[in-house]
């Protein structure tokens, strides 16, 4: 105990002082990650020279390889220059140190192994081995009327197509990927929202066939990843064609403690937990409810903050919601896009989400203005 406290003559006063100090410390204790954010800074336009628009996936490079430096922000575009959804084919990279935006990859619109063309989605990751894997849910006319089955495209660190991953388990690989990366092996989790989805007519039905697929990869030195096993670990999520946003389905994937994979179920307006995600051999269905409704307004991309809380973007307003996955409590939501041009503010603007390497902030996109934004 500090000397000055020992000189206090009245024990009741000492107790009072200690209680006050303890109370102040408790009051200063942050409830979550989002209250520590101070600024939202527009970082860069995400439009490459070919005019592709609608930035979706954001991924921060874990290593330097080829054209990419560790810490670069990779962003893909879902729309082409005419703003048709499902026709975007570019990935740009932004280097924070130099504030330079460059084209990383311009993928051919048609790849023989990718049924239906190329339209890059929120599913994107970069492995420690330097390979970039990105999902495609293509269209010919900007709607699901001409939707193709899609694929995963493997790019080398120079942005060249090195291979594709397709098959009956892959149909519209959509949501942001969760990944366990051990270097020579890796495990990818990706949601598929394309099974039996029709055109966006007046009232397109909700089809409960969306899945979460686990892909176990083997990566030999200098060789593209090879899929060693595919397992559908969750299934039965709602998916729906939409004339405004193309498709709605499970989008955010984030790994938590004890092998749990969290899934943002956009149509169910909930966060689901899939136990033993890395090891299970069967489907957990739509998983266990972690939290539902409340501040969630069509949850989309999701990531994990340093304190273990989940951060998820809302599709129907400009908020990021923070969730304690242990308790299921919705801590609060932060307005990151209060653009009053939409109602509610920021509605339809948010999609991708990624933590900064230092964990002191996160990147997100405002897709209505094709901007990358940093909250820090």
């Amino acid at each position, binding site marked *: 105990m500090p000397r000055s406290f020992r000189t206090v003559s009245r024990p009741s006063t000492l107790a009072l002082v200690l209680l006050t100090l303890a109370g102040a410390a408790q009051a200063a204790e942050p409830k979550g990650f*989002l*209250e520590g*954010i*101070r*600024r*939202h*800074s*527009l970082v*860069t*336009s995400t*439009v490459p*020279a070919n*005019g592709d*628009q*609608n930035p979706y996936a954001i991924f921060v490079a874990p290593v330097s390889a080829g054209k990419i430096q560790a810490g670069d922000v990779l962003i893909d575009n879902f*729309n082409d220059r*005419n*703003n*048709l959804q499902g026709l975007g084919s570019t990935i740009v990279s932004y280097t924070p140190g130099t*504030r330079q*935006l460059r084209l990383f990859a311009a993928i051919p619109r048609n790849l023989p192994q990718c049924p239906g063309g190329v339209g890059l989605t929120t599913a994107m990751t970069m492995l420690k081995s330097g390979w970039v894997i990105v999902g495609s849910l293509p269209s010919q006319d900007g709607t699901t009327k001409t939707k193709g089955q899609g694929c995963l495209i493997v790019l080398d660190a120079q942005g060249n197509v090195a291979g594709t991953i397709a098959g009956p388990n892959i149909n519209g690989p959509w949501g942001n990927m969760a990944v366990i990366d051990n270097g020579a092996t890796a495990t990818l989790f990706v949601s598929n929202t394309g099974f039996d989805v029709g055109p966006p007519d007046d009232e397109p039905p909700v089809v409960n066939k969306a899945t979460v697929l686990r892909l176990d990869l083997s990566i030999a030195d200098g060789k593209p990843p090879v899929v060693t096993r595919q397992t559908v670990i969750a299934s039965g999520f709602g998916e729906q064609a939409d004339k405004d946003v193309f498709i709605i389905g499970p989008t955010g994937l984030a790994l938590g403690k004890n092998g749990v994979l969290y899934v943002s179920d956009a149509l169910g307006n909930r966060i689901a937990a899939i136990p033993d995600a890395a090891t299970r051999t069967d489907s957990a269905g739509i998983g266990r409810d972690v939290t539902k409704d*409340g*501040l969630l307004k069509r949850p989309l991309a999701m990531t994990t903050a340093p304190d273990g809380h989940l951060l998820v973007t809302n599709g*129907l*307003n*400009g*908020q990021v919601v923070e969730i304690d996955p242990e308790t299921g409590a*919705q801590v*609060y*939501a*932060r*307005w*990151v*896009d*209060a*653009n*009053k041009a939409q*109602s*509610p*503010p920021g*509605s339809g603007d948010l999609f991708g989400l990624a933590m900064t390497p230092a964990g002191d902030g996160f990147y997100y996109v*405002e897709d*209505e*203005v*094709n*901007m990358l934004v940093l909250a820090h």
Partner: protein
Amino acid sequence: MLPGPTRFAALPALWFAAGISANPAVAQNDQEPGFTTGLWTRGNLLGDAGGARSGLWNLGITFGLQDINEVWGNVSGGIHRGASYDGVTLLSIGLDTQRGFGWEGGTINVSAWNIRGRNIANDNLLNLQTPSGILAAPTTRLWEVWYQQSFLDGRLDLKLGQQSIDQEYMTSQGSGLFLNTMMGWPMLPSADLYAGGPAYPLSSLGVRLRAQPGGGFTALLGVFADNPPGGPFTDDGQLRGSTRWGGNFNLRTGALVVGEIQYALNQPGNGDLDYGAAGGLPGTYKLGFWYDSAPFPDQQFDNTGLSLANPASTGIALMRWNNFSIYGVADQMVWQPSEGSPRSVSLFARLMGAPGDRNLINFSVNAGITLKAPFQGRDDDTVGIGIGIARVSGGAAAFDRSVTFFSGFASPVRTTETFIEVTYQYTVAPWWQLQPDFQYVFNPGGGILNPNDPTQRVHSEAIFGLRNTITF
């Protein structure tokens, strides 16, 4: 002294309305570029302009080009009947110093007008509350040239340079829908300040401090040169000297101090935390004042204490030292069928008063109701009905009575002019608005005589207009 209607030109604060954040803890200085999406959904006709906008944006540079063209015609009342065209083009260039050269928190803005066409208020109407806020003396002129620096993560910012204060002060979102001048820069400062004050199409040198301490509050305090053209009150036209091209950086006249406190109710700002409590309908409330240190001519008396209507008068008005006004502005959404629905009904009102001895207008009010998304599938359209009332001051009315007394001929005493406006803003695309408009003016000029028929007052006016706005 009755200033000509061109003095009252002012503009709804549409272009650079300052983004007022309910939570200023987050810097709001970044101006989002307007390029996005397809032709019918993007904010600019030219979109990314072949990569130019996004390329310039990454260098910190933004540019804007907006063109407004309109036709107006009065089918009854006024001193003539007929129709006329007027239009403006606004070019603006901004530089974000952070993206430009790494200096955080700085913004430079330069803008210029081309103003053209005829002024139907001068030609046909002679009313006080002129039908369109863009009516002004034709010219091409530099408008605003300022530098803004933000501090404390955007909680404070300071703006220095040539400023048009109608962009930040006395603004009302609801009122801004309407086309009448009174619905933009209001009647009272338009009539009572030198040349209508530093407001469209004019601007003047000044410094403005803005504080956004949080909780939805914003405070503005600025000091500006009060008289953009720099002439006497009776000879203070928009084309006086170098004011014609916007090059009169006058500092030789009085100081105009303007302060305003704003409160944003139920409006999230970037950075606000939402704990899930039910939110109410959004509203904005403002209280403000202005004080002008310059001398202002008395409306009734000359410099020897005689009535200005007295044949023995020197004809030189008594000068009263300083002028002031207080005002309030309220905008409130009152109905929305469900959260997130584009359809909503909002009310607005602005009231302001000033001393009656030195001002032509000692009280003005405008108010109205707007309905957004009035029809299924027309989410970005807005229809509104509004009213504006301008009361001619007791001093000016006393002068009118003195004219009768000294001349022996019955002469009308000016009282109040009122207008009603009905307007529909049809959004063809975010970059293209068409706006048909109808206004009816009761007692034009407050009840002035028709110069073409001095036995009659100017009769009430029915005015139709159509405005076309393109944002390139």
